[in-house]
């Protein structure tokens, strides 16, 4: 039987890093070569085509190649496998490239892979299935149907907005503000129905926030790369609903592939008349323009982002008057996150009420998470709201790497918090996470094990924010400077009694007195780790010990000769050549050369690199002295 087959090669940034482009080239060459054979009668591959798609989310096992319509998924494909794959088309799949599930069985179909089995893809519905550079691919899967219908039938904007309100969709960028309400407010002000009503139609703007900055989150990048038309259609519908004729897509400059794909998609959408000077021949206008971010985390904050679009410093302004009333150049402006927008065409196609059935009562629909850190299966996943942390980490993520103990999961990026083991059964939605002192944020989920020090994690986030704060208001700029100094002191053995309380006091000042959300949420990582791991802080301060064996100034490393298998991994990993040993002589660490970086411990697969408190106890010596005058720069 001869059938048209499509080889979908994942070409997301992750897979490209693993040479996916070469794999696609090799497959194309193999198909072409087989095509020659086809003339002499090999039918199996005569009509195979190779498509380069966006990210499948399982980057760790990339490059991924899928065969349609057989529904075969291959992982870790190398160019050398191309011929084998092409030769197998129509026959038995190539076993060596299939995934093995937790029971060590081979799985062929994507949905039989435990990583994908319980996912529900809405925001990611097209990614990995289409070539993002081919608009027809998007249209074949129902793309631009909704926009075209709304515009051709001149559906009243209120109807569109009501559908969004009914769906219960909340902004996926972090704050979780109801999208429909935001649109309604802006539409009201634009039409002159607002408080400052003078009856005339005001210009309005729509923006897409693609300045994904939360470390550990990459769903927006993936969506922009893999389904740019989905985002453009969402933004165009938004513009229709609020009466905007101009819009901006603010995208991080570091996201090269996303910028390239979105810019190509804008050109083809304009060519087809979905945007531009005369949308679908109706005389409507919509100009969409890409603005490249400059590498400033704070520009993910809505008002800072708008300042940045206007060509100003990315300093937030007070939100006593919302952007929906006075945003870009003081006109009504709607700013939505990438993931929010890509949901819009789907919601309008299936109906708001239908969408609202998914998820929890207060958070409808699905959410994309990037599950990373110390889990066996890392990647981008999309599940209905309300899934438990345990389900995400242990079923989809396959549990903790090397069977270590789960310690905490950090959600919501630098504005979020760390959630400990006792809340693993927490149902994840906007409010559930906030109640536990964390945040949904953009959906980053970083899993930590017993080798992660929670004080160090807090110090890391505060350091990040101290650098990324815009520096405009006193509590955020100065508060973070002091919190960073104190946390550095604690991790380096100079902590003092009262430091924990002082951190809490500074944290509350930031929460209440800062200008923008970055400052108000900045202490969350500190406050949540103090709340759930206070004993770890105390161990650093009073005993001068880092219980997780991470903080170099408090930790000595040694090799347990009993457990050591002389595999040599630690020696190879040591950047200072401090480890000596071989099959005959036991491995030992030369403390004079050791910088306590922990590379050996990370490399050891037998738990034979152990830690103990620093022999002399620098901490004890430091505990009495004041950290005054000592400021981390």
């Amino acid at each position, binding site marked *: 039987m001869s059938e048209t087959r499509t080889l979908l090669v994942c070409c997301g*940034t*992750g897979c*490209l*890093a*693993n040479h996916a482009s070469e794999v696609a080239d090799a497959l194309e060459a193999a198909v072409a070569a087989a095509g020659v054979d086809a003339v002499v009668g090999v039918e199996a591959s005569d009509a195979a085509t190779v498509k380069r798609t966006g990210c499948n989310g*399982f*980057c*760790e096992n990339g490059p991924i190649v899928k065969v349609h319509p057989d529904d075969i998924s291959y992982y870790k494909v190398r160019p050398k496998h191309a011929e084998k794959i092409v030769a197998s088309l129509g026959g038995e799949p190539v076993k060596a490239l299939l995934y093995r599930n937790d029971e060590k069985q081979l799985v062929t179909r994507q949905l039989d892979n435990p990583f994908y089995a319980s996912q529900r893809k809405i925001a990611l519905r097209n990614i990995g299935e289409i070539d993002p550079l081919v608009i027809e691919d998007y249209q074949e899967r129902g793309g631009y149907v909704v926009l075209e219908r709304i515009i051709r039938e001149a559906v009243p904007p209120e109807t569109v907005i009501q559908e969004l309100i009914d769906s219960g969709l909340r902004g996926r960028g972090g704050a979780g503000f109801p999208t429909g309400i935001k649109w309604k407010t802006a539409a009201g002000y634009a039409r002159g129905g607002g408080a400052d009503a003078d009856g005339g139609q005001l210009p309005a703007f729509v923006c897409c926030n693609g300045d*994904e*900055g*939360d*470390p*550990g*989150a*990459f769903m927006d*990048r993936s969506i922009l790369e893999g389904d740019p038309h989905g985002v453009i259609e969402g933004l165009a519908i938004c513009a229709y609903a609020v009466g905007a004729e101009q819009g901006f897509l603010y995208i991080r*400059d*570091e*996201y*090269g592939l996303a910028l390239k794909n979105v810019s190509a998609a804008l050109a083809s959408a304009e060519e087809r008349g979905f945007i531009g000077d005369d949308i679908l021949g109706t005389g409507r206008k919509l100009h969409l323009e890409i*603005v*490249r*971010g*400059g*590498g*400033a*985390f704070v520009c993910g904050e809505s008002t800072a982002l708008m300042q*940045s*679009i*206007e*060509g*100003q*410093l*990315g300093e937030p302004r007070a939100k006593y008057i919302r952007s929906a009333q006075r945003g870009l150049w003081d006109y009504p402006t709607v700013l939505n996150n990438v993931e929010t927008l890509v949901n819009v065409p789907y919601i309008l196609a299936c109906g708001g009420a239908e969408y609202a059935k998914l998820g929890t009562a207060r958070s409808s629909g699905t959410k994309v998470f*990037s599950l*990373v*850190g*110390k889990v066996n299966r*890392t*990647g*981008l996943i999309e599940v209905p709201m309300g899934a438990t942390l345990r389900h995400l980490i242990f079923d989809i993520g396959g549990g903790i790497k090397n069977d270590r103990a789960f310690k905490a999961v*950090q959600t919501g*990026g630098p504005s979020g918090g760390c959630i400990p083991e006792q809340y693993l059964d927490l149902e994840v939605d906007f409010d559930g996470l906030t109640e536990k002192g964390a945040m949904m944020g953009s959906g980053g989920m*970083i899993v*930590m094990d017993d080798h*992660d020090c929670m004080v160090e994690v807090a110090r*890391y*986030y505060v350091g*990040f924010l101290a650098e*990324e704060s*815009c520096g405009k208001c006193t509590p955020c700029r100065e508060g973070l400077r002091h919190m960073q100094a104190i946390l550095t002191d604690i991790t380096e053995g100079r902590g003092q009694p009262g430091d924990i309380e002082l951190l809490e006091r500074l944290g509350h000042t930031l929460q209440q007195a800062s200008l923008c959300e970055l400052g108000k949420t900045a202490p969350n990582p500190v406050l949540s780790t103090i709340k759930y791991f206070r004993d770890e802080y105390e161990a650093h301060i009073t005993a001068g010990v880092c219980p997780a064996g991470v903080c170099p100034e408090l930790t000595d490393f040694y090799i347990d000769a009993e457990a050591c298998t002389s595999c040599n991994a630690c020696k*190879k*990993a040591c*950047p*200072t050549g401090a480890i000596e040993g071989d099959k005959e002589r036991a491995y030992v660490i030369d403390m004079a050369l050791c*910088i306590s*970086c*922990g*590379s050996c411990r990370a*490399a050891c697969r037998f738990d034979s690199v152990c830690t103990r408190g620093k022999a002399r106890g620098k901490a004890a010596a430091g505990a009495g002295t004041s950290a005054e005058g000592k400021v981390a720069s």
Partner: protein
Amino acid sequence: MEERIREIAQRYPAEKRFSLAVLQDVQREFNYIPPEALPLIKEHLGPDVREGQLYALATFYKALSLKPKGKHIIKICDGTACHMQGSTRLITAVQLALGIGPGECTPDGQFSLELVNCVGSCALAPIMIVDETYHSKVTMEGLPAILDTYRPGGERDV
């Protein structure tokens, strides 16, 4: 150089909102913002734009640099996932290997070392990007060989 900067500025309409875009393009061309650039950019963008504002932008946005960079720019991702998977160790190892800290350039101008925020390749942590090439799951063991390819005469030193 001045002619080139003028050409870059003229890619954009003379409006304040294109300040950042022009600066980014200048950065891309020269690997930094030369001091000569600000007056020329101001001249093109018009009276709404002030030199002080351009300088503020150049120091505010991390993508822009006022100092020239090395021939090969090593970016180590210090996003949370990479941090958890040992980016700090990687930074230490690169520092030891090249003798430069983050934000510095080797005396011979061969390498610059930068810490960058999450590049969104968390599943492949730790990530090191040299020029445009992503090196994923970099190990201490594999690091020296990667660096060697960028040293003078190395296969990637082009």
